[in-house]
């Protein structure tokens, strides 16, 4: 008859960890990999249909507008700075700082979503115009869907940190939310360059 022998005692291990140590962080990273792959697919599709046209965008379509989309992309990139500030507060388990940071980010993501709505208009093409329109639209639309969902998530986190029953592990979740926002803001830059600059350059 065998018996159990307790050789490892884990009583003293922490219950809140951040970054690579946290399983939720790893889960978030896996989802970023999935969504990143999807964004790559959109980009590949755009480039693939490009070869079926002599001119890009195909006449009579005109190139996308540049002013508002550039402001929108820059705004999105700059939100990483308050996001970084929030990220630091989260990691220090600073409840008040996290609450304020989340509130600020809630407003900023709302503005980002609002600015994004103009990007669709500034494409100067419709999804059913031709393959160029379809490819440009889906690329913007896919990122926008993620952006909108991330905005909702940020609002939920804000609500949780202000009003909800809080636990230590929620700081870890907020940490993942910050990491995801970096992905959102930075992944947009190559897509913005592709959609709004490539038709002008070639």
């Amino acid at each position, binding site marked *: 008859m065998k018996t159990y022998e*307790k050789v490892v005692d884990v009583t003293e*291990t922490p219950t809140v*960890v951040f970054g690579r140590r946290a399983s939720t962080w790893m889960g978030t990273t*896996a989802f970023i990999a999935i969504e990143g792959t999807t964004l790559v697919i959109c980009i590949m599709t755009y480039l693939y249909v490009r070869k079926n*046209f002599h001119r890009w965008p195909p006449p009579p379509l005109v190139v996308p507008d540049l002013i508002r989309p550039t402001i929108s992309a820059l705004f999105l990139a700059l939100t990483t700075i308050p996001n970084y500030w929030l990220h630091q507060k989260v990691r220090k388990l*600073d409840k008040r700082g996290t609450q304020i940071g989340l509130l600020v980010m809630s407003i900023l993501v709302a503005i980002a979503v609002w600015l994004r709505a103009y990007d669709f208009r500034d494409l100067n093409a419709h999804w059913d115009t031709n393959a160029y329109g379809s490819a440009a639209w889906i690329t913007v639309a896919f990122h926008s869907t993620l952006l*909108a969902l991330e905005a909702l998530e940020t609002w939920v986190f804000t609500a949780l940190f202000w009003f909800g029953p809080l636990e230590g592990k929620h700081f870890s979740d907020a940490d993942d939310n910050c990491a995801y926002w970096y992905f959102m803001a930075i992944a947009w830059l190559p897509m913005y360059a592709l959609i709004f600059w490539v038709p002008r350059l070639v």
Partner: protein
Amino acid sequence: MTAPMPVVTQEIALSADDLKTRDELEKSWAYPRGFVGWLKNTSHLSVGKRYIITALVFFILGGLEAGLMRLQLSRPENAWIGPDLYNQIFTMHGTTMMFLFAVPVMTAVGLYLVPLMIGTRNVFAPRLNLFGYFTYLIGGAFLYVAFFVNNGPDAGWSAYTPLSGPGFSPGKRVDVWAQTITFTEIAALSAAVIIIVTVFKQRAPGMSLNRIPLFVWAMLVTAFMIVFSMPWVATGSQMLAADRLIDTHFFNAAEGGDALLWQHLFWFFGHPEVYIIFIPALGMVSAIVETFTGRPIFAYPVMVLSLITTGFMGFGLWVHHMFATPIPQLGQSFFTAASSIIAIPTGVQIFCWIATIWAGKPRFTTPLLFIIGFIITFVIGGVTGVMIASVPFDLQAHDTYFIVAHLHYVLIGGGLFPLFGAFYYWFPKFTGRMMSERLGKVNFWLFFIGVHVTFFPMHILGLEGMTRRIYTYLPETGWGPLNMVSSAGAVIIVLSVALFLFNAITSWRRGAPAGDNPWGAASLEWATESPPPPYVFLHVPVCTSEHPLWDETDKRPVVTGLRTDIRENLYTTMMDAEPDHRHDSPEPNIWPFIAALATGVMFITAIFTAWGLVIGIILLFFPCVKWGWPVRAEQEKRLSGERDPLALAGR
């Protein structure tokens, strides 16, 4: 050739302390009962089991479709099934077998076994696991409801555009296909994320990378392949749906879209998918060979490297499904080379198993017979795979019954044989009872003979000009006799599967009790009761070698210090599996099920109007918030034992 007599053993003597722990765990890990309880049950044991059973139901449905096709093709100019129905049947067969059976059953076995094999109490994100199962179930049920009301997809499981596009497939049949794909992709991606995180973070202390069982390695590689391949078909099928619903032009050549774009998107997923089915099977083979030869698999590091190499290379082959399209010569040579060379890592694994059997003491139980059948059958599929990697030959074989033969040799030989073996092998763990060895052996021989009689003649038929996906053929073609042989073989397969089901059902009810470790296996899933209790392990095990149960003395090393008053899992470091932190495992709740329903409403509505997506997001919002929003009563319990690295100032 005698099977080991299973003996019920009380393998572990429980102290008073252990009994107290057991009582506490039974309370804290209890899952709600009844039908509503079933909807909430987030135990990987429950989810894994129902996943496997659902997949088997789809396997039977897909098999019945195959039977109908063999009936129709058994003689020329058969008038039983017309083209409209036949096209639905073969599309249903392919879609069912690939999306509703093969991939889900492999991930399901993984979801059930991985936590057991690595020594943890539940998977990462168990609610996501439950959600994944329900989306899969809804997707599969939706497909079959559509089929029974004569709206089954009919453009082939690969749904090539423009045939599947708005111009040539009016109606909703192809939309049903596209959304079913989306459902199953969500389930597969959820499972993949769960498996990756579970394997990386929840291994028992001491289970460093070089001690992970090969099956777990295989599931890990598979999960990564799912992450990087499934988005291609998911995005592609959404583009197809958009072309059909809102007049986008991704695949419409007249507006600058491209029919070949679909093929690239589909096969960049479709080829890895073959390995998503095959690699878990390789893991099953390693587990079974190890147990029934009684020695470690020869060259473990090489086996692991082979799995990883196969996983990487699986992404470099997709164009070999497109050799008959205009592809530059240089590209063709590259893909020919890649497609032949991928045979090497698999070949190496086969050689290592043969070496293991050679040095071991094989016990010829049903699982091992299936593995021997696997090698004999699969190698035929492998060598024909090398043949069709050659562009000139593939141009003859492509889209003919030679390919049908090849792919069934690969998927049945490489997937089903190991799966049947795995089923016999792990059945005692799933149910606590042994399957009948006598019936098992008859099952094996019928299946082995049936598969070869059915599929071997198809090689010849293909090169004699019989193309795929035809509902009938003219008598002048001379294809009648071999088709009749093939159909006769299908009858044998049906018998063997019926026998298998009979064996499984009767054994589940009346089989000999199995005990913890009936086969004398080495890995940790056998270090708990059969079937495992909801808390899985009374004490989380500590892994002291590559073969913990073989190297065990009279003491079983375990972990202490995990809370027993709440559900708590131990998390370890990624490489060396040193204890790192503790985290609660989410309580079961109803919201993953509600969210899956909302997802169902979203995708099914989206067949008719693009507003379905907006409606879906609105419907999903509340369940998703509730899904993760903490419940105060549960939380207070958890907070009492929280240990933070820093003081939780101001909370």
